């Protein structure tokens, strides 16, 4: 009797428990939000390396499907995976398509994966500014230093030291786009970027002799319009950027000579555009300008690492013509791109110095969802009053196979000023691993060659 009663009670308890489990399961299944908030749902490095990452369909319980178009009218479906800046972009007319990313082995070269596995175990952070060394005191040897960052500094340091390529040449166009989407101006520029340390493939490796104290050099010169043609800038980032602050030079055609330039120009805009020199890669200015805080890790919708079509027409370098297969909304303001779910580290950076931004939020893709650079797929910039000011969307990517290795090469950043409605679309067609040399491509003489 007691047994039966007990059994009955047990049956009742089991029924209640079962009902609760079913209810919770149904709730979880129907709510992607709850899924993504659970730490266990966020894939660890091993899972990510296998490509075991949830899709938007799984996260939304099938409400949003791959291939769906998202705009301001239906963005609630995926709102949990959108940043505030993206939500405002959608409100202002952006349209995105839901997509998926290729497998990691199709995104990142094998030598880079091997270097990350080998080197990340021995990395030591030397200061609060992302200066890292190997355990034996030698300089960083390449790869992503912190595949599982524990804090914001480590996540941001991955951007600083995790560039996949040894050199980069870019043929770029800056499109200045008004609030109504019309192209106001178009500037043409060329860029060379070289790593001086942690070089893995292109000779000389692992560092350029005589330049071991430098981390990277970047040189950019305008070609058009003629009023700007020849204006160029060379910036040098030192390995220990606190001990030796950045060095900068510029070439001014009106003077026909190179002049030294203050490194504080990181907060200057590029040719009057919405794009500041410090906006590149989310954080291009010195790390000692910033404090870092990891807000969390979560699934986010970031620009997919492979788009349906490249934005660059084959004649882009010469004509600036875009591939008509890529559609835009609001005139030329928002390219319609695929966005895919990416495990993301959300990092808040606040300035230590007087800065044009009161803070930035970097949405750093988790390795190995790793472009050759511009790994902060989204960056949000806040004005001095603390209001959301800009959303920088590192538009799409093309995957190119060079010597049998895949390289995920971004198109360039779209800088949306959410307050004024103005946009600068920086499209940079990149050529990588060319074998650039300091003396030919990244020195003051190069500025004169770029110049008029």
């Amino acid at each position: 009797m007691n047994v039966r009663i007990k059994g009955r009670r047990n049956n009742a308890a089991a029924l209640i428990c079962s009902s609760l489990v079913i209810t919770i399961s149904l709730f979880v299944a129907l709510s992607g939000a709850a899924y993504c908030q659970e730490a266990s749902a966020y894939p660890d490095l091993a899972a990510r390396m296998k490509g075991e990452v949830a899709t938007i369909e799984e996260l939304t319980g099938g409400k949003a499907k791959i291939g769906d178009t998202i705009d301001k009218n239906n963005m609630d479906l995926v709102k949990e995976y959108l940043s505030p800046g993206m939500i405002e972009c959608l409100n202002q007319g952006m349209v995105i398509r839901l997509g998926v990313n290729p497998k990691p082995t199709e995104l990142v070269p094998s030598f880079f994966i091997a270097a990350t596995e080998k080197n990340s175990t021995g990395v030591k952070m030397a200061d609060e500014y992302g200066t890292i060394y190997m355990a034996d005191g030698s300089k960083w040897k390449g790869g992503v230093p912190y595949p599982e960052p524990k804090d914001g500094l480590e996540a941001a340091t991955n951007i600083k030291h995790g560039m996949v390529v040894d050199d980069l040449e870019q043929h770029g166009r800056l499109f200045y786009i008004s609030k109504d989407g019309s192209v106001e101006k178009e500037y043409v520029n060329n860029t060379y970027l070289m790593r001086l340390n942690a070089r893995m493939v292109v000779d000389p490796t692992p560092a350029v002799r005589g330049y071991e104290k430098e981390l990277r050099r970047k040189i950019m010169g305008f070609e058009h319009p003629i009023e700007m043609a020849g204006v160029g800038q060379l910036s040098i980032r030192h390995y220990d950027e606190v001990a030796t602050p950045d060095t900068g030079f510029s070439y001014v055609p009106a003077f026909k000579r190179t002049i030294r330039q203050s490194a504080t120009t990181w907060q200057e805009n590029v040719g009057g555009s919405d794009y500041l020199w410090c906006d590149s890669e989310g954080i291009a200015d010195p790390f000692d300008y910033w404090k870092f805080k990891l807000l969390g890790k979560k699934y986010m919708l970031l620009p997919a690492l492979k788009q349906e079509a490249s934005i660059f027409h084959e004649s882009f370098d010469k004509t600036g013509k875009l591939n008509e297969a890529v559609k835009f909304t609001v005139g030329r303001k928002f390219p319609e791109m695929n966005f895919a779910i990416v495990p993301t580290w959300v990092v808040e950076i606040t300035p230590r110095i007087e800065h044009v931004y009161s803070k930035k939020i970097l949405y750093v893709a988790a390795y190995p969802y790793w472009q050759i650079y511009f790994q902060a797929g989204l960056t949000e910039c806040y004005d001095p009053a603390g209001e959301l000011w800009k959303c920088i969307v590192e538009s799409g990517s093309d995957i190119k196979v060079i010597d049998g290795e895949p390289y995920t090469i971004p198109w360039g950043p779209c800088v949306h000023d959410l307050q004024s409605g103005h946009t600068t679309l920086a499209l940079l067609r990149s050529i990588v691993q060319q074998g650039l040399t300091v003396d030919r491509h990244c020195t003051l003489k190069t500025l004169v060659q770029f110049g008029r």
Partner: protein
Amino acid sequence: MRKWKSALALGAVVLALLVSFTGESEARIMLTDSIYLEGFARYTLGVHTGSHNPYNELYGQDENHDYNLARAMLQGELTYKPSQNFKAFAKLRFTHDHTQHIDGALLDYNAQPLDVPSSDWTMMKMSNDEARAEVWELYTDLQLGDLWLRLGKQQISWGEMIGVRITDQVNALDTSWHLTMEPEEYENIRIPNWMLRGVYQFGAIECLNLRDSYLEAFVNPGDITPNQGPVPGNPYNQQGPFPAFFNIDDKDHRGDTEYGFRTGGMLNEFYFTLIYMKVFSDSYKLQTVGFTPDPVNGRPFFAAEGDPTLYSALIDARYKKVDVFGFTCNYEIPPPFGTVATLEASWTPDAAWGKAGASLPEIEEQGEFVYSLALNRPTTILPRMIMGSPIPLTAITLQFVQYIREGENRDILGPGNSIMEHTQELVVFNIKQDLLYRALTVGFQTIIDLDDAYQLKPSITYRHSDDWYVDLVGVFFSGAETQAGRLGYLDYADEIYARFTYQF
């Protein structure tokens, strides 16, 4: 005459046609895959706000004039770049100056005086008094390993200072049409010469702790051109007539050779250059070499010795070959100062001057040391946002220049026979602010001569779309120091000018 008119018309028509066929989507005109054309059409109108030009008064201009400059220019820049290692570049100019036509107070004058005999093809220009067609620059760039060569008609600008030419002494200036008042400073007026220029990049020299080291050299095999100033009658004319008994022979050095070297690099965080050049002075100095009987304009120079004959003085206008030793160095005082300090200096041990107190022109050699220290800092002055537009940093430059001459004070003569002090100091202040996504740029430059003379140069540039921009610039001179060659003496050139530019 017919020849230049045909060239001018043909060039202008070809450029205009090419521009008109340009599609909106193309930022520049691609003629082939590797040849492209850019350029601009510009009209400049300068309204005179100064006093009556005292030198033109000596030539017979009775009343003050209203316009300093009315000039149209079509410039095309043609580039052939088949590879990263080779480039050919040509800058073509077509100009027409019609200042005399819109201002009846002006005398007739040659507005295009920079010219050579038609037998000398190397200057590549054809002109009459109003119009000129020319190949302003024409060169090829060649990269051979670590050696970079530029061969052709080109400008070479060494040094780092604004508004003063300390080691920028390779090319002469054509100040004949707008003095040094153009916003681009010297770009449009530095006269290109046929030269070979080479830069060999040594890169890092570890034993010297040097980076980015290089050796640069140029040689001008004979395309020597002196400064060209405004001629009598030009609103900017700076010189009255010579005495009638001066029989002047211009001893130019066309056909002679100039050369120079520069080496530099980064030593820790100091970037430096060392310069040597052997060049001809761009301005002449007069040297009396003899006398010749001249019953019409002559003077009785030897009357006291019993010779009542009238003579003219035989005078050479000489451009002395000088040695110039130069040095530049810059360093950034790290943030939070974020200020770039630049030092530039030159020493010319055998500079040529006029001899003060001489009854007839004589050249006096005295060394001159010039140095300048500049501080440059981008600074936050305005709010970071105005009218929904982010405001970039304000560029501020403060520069001090001192000239130190050998010898006694006031024993030599400079431009226009002005007495030269033992030392002379200038302060240059420059500020520039971009606004409205660089649609608007506001600037102000002042050059202050500490002997009480100054130049003020406020400017506004408005850019509309990719194609159009307008510069509105004021240039005002004043001060008590009114000797020739000093800023106060140019108050008759004061003006406000507008430049309307369509670029393609």
